[in-house]
């Protein structure tokens, strides 16, 4: 339900190495790019899901995304609760291009986001 629009945005993400869409517990729902970095990114996604909840208590409103600069890579996590969108690029990549496209990527995930929310609500009732 999400794949066509989301997939059409991927070529615009210059320098992207790995992309993951995970649920709040780190289960991978969508993946793209180099699978070698997936495990690291998956762990970070699960950590971000908890971090974004805590940062929402700082009195600055809901956290939208976090960009983390490492020696070997730059990682962007975007909050689309209950989903987490994580992107990994090279350390010297143009991360601004990724951030410019983030609103469109998050909007393209809306159908999947709503579907997961419905499933979580139903499993909560059962």
């Amino acid at each position, binding site marked *: 339900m999400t794949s066509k629009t989301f997939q059409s945005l991927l070529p615009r993400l210059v320098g992207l190495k790995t992309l993951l869409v995970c649920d709040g517990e780190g289960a991978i729902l969508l993946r793209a790019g180099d699978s070698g970095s997936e495990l690291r990114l998956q762990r970070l996604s699960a950590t971000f899901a908890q971090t974004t909840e805590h940062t929402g208590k700082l009195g600055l409103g809901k956290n939208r995304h976090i960009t983390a600069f490492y020696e070997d890579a730059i990682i962007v996590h975007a909050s689309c609760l209950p989903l987490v969108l994580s992107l990994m690029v090279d350390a*010297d990549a*143009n*991360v*601004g*291009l*990724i*951030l*410019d496209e983030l609103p469109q990527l998050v909007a393209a995930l809306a159908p999947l986001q709503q579907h997961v929310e419905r499933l979580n609500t139903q499993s909560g009732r059962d």
Partner: protein
Amino acid sequence: PCSALADARARSGAALVRRPMEGVCETAMQSPGVLGVMCVDSHGLCLASQGDVPQASGAIAEIAAQASSLVEDGALICITSPTRKVMVSRSEGVTTAIFMDPAPNL
């Protein structure tokens, strides 16, 4: 006198380097026809901006990076459309974009 002049020039040059980027944007905004100014770092992140500028800091950095593969750093890239003119240049890792009214038809 020559050494004093050289010292004064060196000090004013250093002062220019230390001048906040926002001050430089303000100066550029005062030029006629300038609608907006944006300064972007090598990661495509906005360092400073003023006026009417799009949310496209990454694109500005990418344009300068691609141009540098054709010509050396410091080149001026001019993008013209019917409604807007954009001038982009990169120097010492900082890309500056100036958004202007297009030149009037003669």
